[in-house]
């Protein structure tokens, strides 16, 4: 974040704001849910917990339904993903069936 320099008035205003627009709203330093969805720490540092690093645990406990499919309805979701950093393209797209 510190490497990004504001180039206009609006950007400088955003930089001066103390109301962070990125916040972990569930768990301070874990990879649960970040609004608006970027992966940074609560102090704007590099992500302490990449979204991938405990994906299956988020999935298994079905606690963050918005981020991962539930394991009963979509049990095969991670079947073709041996290494989450290399194989994330293989993650199934879950259809929105309403």
């Amino acid at each position, binding site marked *: 974040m510190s490497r990004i320099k504001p180039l206009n008035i609006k950007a400088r205003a955003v930089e001066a704001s103390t109301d962070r627009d990125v916040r972990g709203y*569930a*768990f*301070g*330093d*874990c*990879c*649960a849910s970040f609004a608006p969805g970027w992966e940074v720490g609560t102090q704007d540092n590099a992500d*302490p*917990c*990449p979204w*991938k*690093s*405990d*994906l*299956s*645990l988020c999935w*298994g*406990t*079905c*606690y963050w339904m918005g981020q991962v499919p*539930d*394991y*009963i*309805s*979509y*049990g*095969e*979701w*991670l*079947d*073709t*993903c*041996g*290494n*989450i*950093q*290399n194989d994330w393209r293989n993650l199934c797209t879950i259809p929105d*069936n*309403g």
Partner: protein
Amino acid sequence: MLQRTNSYICTLAALVAAAVWLLALPQHTEAAGARTAWVSSNHIQVIDLDTARVIGRLPLSEFIHDMDFSVDGNRVYVGSSKGLRVADANELRFVQQVSTSMTKAVAVSKDGSRVAAIHPGDREATQAARKAGLPLPPAKITIYSTLDMKEQSSWHVHAMTFDVLFAPSNDRVYVLVPPEGMVYVHDLSGAVLDTIQLVPRSPEGSHQGAMLTWMALSPDGRSLVVPGTTADRSFVAEVDLGNRRPLDERVVHQDLGHNRRIQGLAWDDDGSGVYVTAVNSMVKFNGLGLPIAWESMPLNYVDIEPIPGTNENVLVAPIFSKSNKSGGVAILGENGEFLRTVELPDMSPYFVAVRP
């Protein structure tokens, strides 16, 4: 001319067969004699704990939810997104598919005679229930005999049942139901013998948003621990199973002093405490829930398992090296120092089981 060609082909085939045999032989020999840890994502890799080398792979293409060794260490029971399987720990291959139902958790009884498994409800029925806003179809606990892996009994439980463990007496199981904040104690026919409320229920019946993950039973069977995380704090719920405290104090919450999500959980095999890994840290609690060791971790280790008979632990990290895009395994000494590590370029390990 034809005879000579056939002779060449036969010789070549013999050489290829010999090469395959030679390549296969060391893997089996190594596995039979080595201290090994089995780590999993959508397949299994077997790590030699003394050399930190991968000595075997078991391909599967099914996400593995749980693994547990037989008491003698010769079999591994593997629960995956598409079934329950048995692997031979010496030959490093699957030898039986017991069930084609998703298997969320597996547990082996202390006497080695039975395996308990959680099979969630039917997928289509679950999806239909979700759309209709109806209760989800129940999951099923099934008890198998390890002699022939035939089903001995089964019964329905809450749809979101997450973990199962055998009591040391082998005649009952503990069943964790996170949405209810509850552990049910069943006999092996499914009758409910007891219930343990881990998290107080609100008037609406919810359990106040606490996320409960795994259970771990102390080696003496007198203490059951279940970690939990809420939006405000992380804690370890310690259940007294040995009548050491009054009944109204049977469940005690030990606050971890942060709200980091708890991930790995394992009792030390000597009963001296329970290890908990959270984001960027590892803590060891004693039997009273007091932290006796704390180690800052550079990575997010999601599972931990002590190596029996030693002061060493094995930890797995799905993201071990971002630059190399590898997962990894670390073996830690008694002071938390890294003894050996291995990067796994083709795996993000989520679970580890150490061969007894």
